[in-house]
């Protein structure tokens, strides 16, 4: 499998704060990779760096063999990098249909007829077809998350960055969302999924990256990651991590 995205020594500082420092990893085509890390670890900043919302302090982002370190968000979108926001970002007084159409029309780079067709496909896919004509502002949270997903998918992305799509959903709703994500992956779209719920993450991802204090702490198979001493320490602190290993042995 060839590599779709490569980050090489990517850093970002806001004044004296190093939000992300020297992070390097690659994503292969068609892979689902999970990313975890305690609050403030720099996960969302990393997504913003990949999509060009923030400019890199140092390092390089390579997408499909091209250096895209200096791209702007709309360029990322047109190249095929779509994202969802942790806090959903709809066009509030536009209809559900128009929201998704914005994705297919501008991000998909297609003509209007084609864009409408794509919009209808994705609305059906996420299950929002029945409420396509209501304004996005009146959607419930799970539906807003679905809308966010449909909008990103309508852009026909090659890489999808999911920033906590499950935050604020209950168990049943998460199950539905995970099913959708598996189906998206089945289409061959590469997915980087940021998630706090370990159970969810371990069940879908082939590989897990762990970010801590802006640095890459560990990388590996899901079951290896949960056993990793450094990861346990990052989440529980040294004292409790010690107790946990003691109990195990």
């Amino acid at each position, binding site marked *: 499998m060839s590599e779709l995205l490569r980050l090489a020594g990517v850093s970002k500082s806001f004044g004296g704060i190093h939000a992300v420092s020297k992070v390097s990893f690659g994503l292969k085509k068609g892979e689902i990779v999970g990313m975890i890390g305690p609050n403030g670890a720099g996960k969302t900043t990393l997504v913003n760096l990949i999509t060009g919302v923030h400019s890199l302090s140092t390092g390089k982002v390579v997408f499909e063999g091209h250096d895209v370190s200096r791209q702007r968000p709309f360029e990322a979108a047109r190249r095929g990098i779509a994202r969802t926001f942790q806090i959903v*970002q709809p066009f509030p007084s536009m209809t559900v249909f*128009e929201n998704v*159409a914005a994705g297919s*029309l*501008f991000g998909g*780079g297609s003509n209007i007829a084609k864009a409408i067709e794509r919009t209808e496909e994705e609305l059906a896919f996420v299950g929002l077809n029945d409420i396509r004509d209501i304004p996005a502002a009146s959607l419930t949270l799970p539906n807003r998350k679905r809308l966010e997903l449909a909008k990103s998918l309508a852009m026909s992305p090659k890489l999808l960055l999911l920033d906590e799509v499950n935050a604020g959903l209950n168990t049943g709703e998460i199950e539905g969302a995970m099913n959708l994500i598996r189906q998206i992956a089945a289409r061959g779209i590469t997915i980087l999924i940021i998630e706090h719920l370990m159970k969810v993450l371990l069940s879908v991802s082939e590989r897990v990256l762990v970010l801590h204090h802006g640095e890459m702490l560990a990388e590996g198979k899901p079951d290896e990651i949960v056993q990793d001493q450094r990861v346990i320490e990052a989440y529980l602190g040294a004292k409790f991590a010690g107790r946990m290993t003691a109990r195990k042995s």
Partner: protein
Amino acid sequence: MMRRYQPFGFVLFVFWCAALLITPMWADNYVVRIAITMAMFSAMALSWNFIGGFVGYPSFSTAAFFGIGCYIGALAQRADAPMVASWLIATIVVAAFAAALGAIILRLKGHYFAIGSIAIVELTRLITSSWSSVTGGGNGLNVPLLGGSPDEVSAFVLYVMTVVMIAAFIVTFLVDRSRLGFGFRCIHQNEDAADMVGIDTTRYKVLAFTLSALFCGTVGAVYASWVGYIDPTDTFSILLTVKVPVMVLLGGAGTLFGPVVGAVGFVFLEEVFWANFLEWNRAILGFIIVFLIFFLPNGLLRIDYKRLLRKRTGTVTGAAKS
């Protein structure tokens, strides 16, 4: 994109244009003057609608565009350019000015953008009044007079202003139903999300700002030819820069017909108040602004008249029962 229109509005608009154009046949110069003012402000309100209504950036630069249009038109004519050519030159120069300026001040958002754009009016006014060697400074400039009797001049200016208004309307219509207009609306709703779905927000905003200047430049140049004399305080007027957005808000920002409805309504009200309350007309303008913000934030065209009617009849029948 995918917008549906009711033919009613268009029919009304065509009738309105016809009504404007036949004014000189039956009315005296006073009425024709009002008709010119209505057409002129309609064109400027339609222009403002691109940036203020569609994209949602509260621009107060209208007077700067109008004033520069006046001066470029006047200077071109004084340099012996034919009248129509000098109007076109003014349009192009103002559009280029707005494009260059937009790239700078559209980095600001919300209130900051509003203040930045209002500063442009003051700045251009000060430059114009200090640069005496070119602009004549505070003494103003004489513009070659239009030939013909006063009635003929008024009729001619009215036709030109109406044509400019129709042009502005056609461009609004085309933008409204195109990808561009859809992109403008997306930026209005949520600029970050618009960026993220692949809209080049900077370019779109600069385009909207340029569109909002274009016709103001033409209107300014035609105005200069009409009045025959311009000076900095008259052309770069803060009052003008506030009036135009108020008109659009009165009619309905971001709608197709709102700017025209608002401009016509406002000019009519202003004429009534000006004639009857000479001392109080500014206060009344202030009152209209306050009223708009509190009671009609979406303008006349966004009111759900059917619901309003149902409510009224509802309360009437309810009262009859009790």
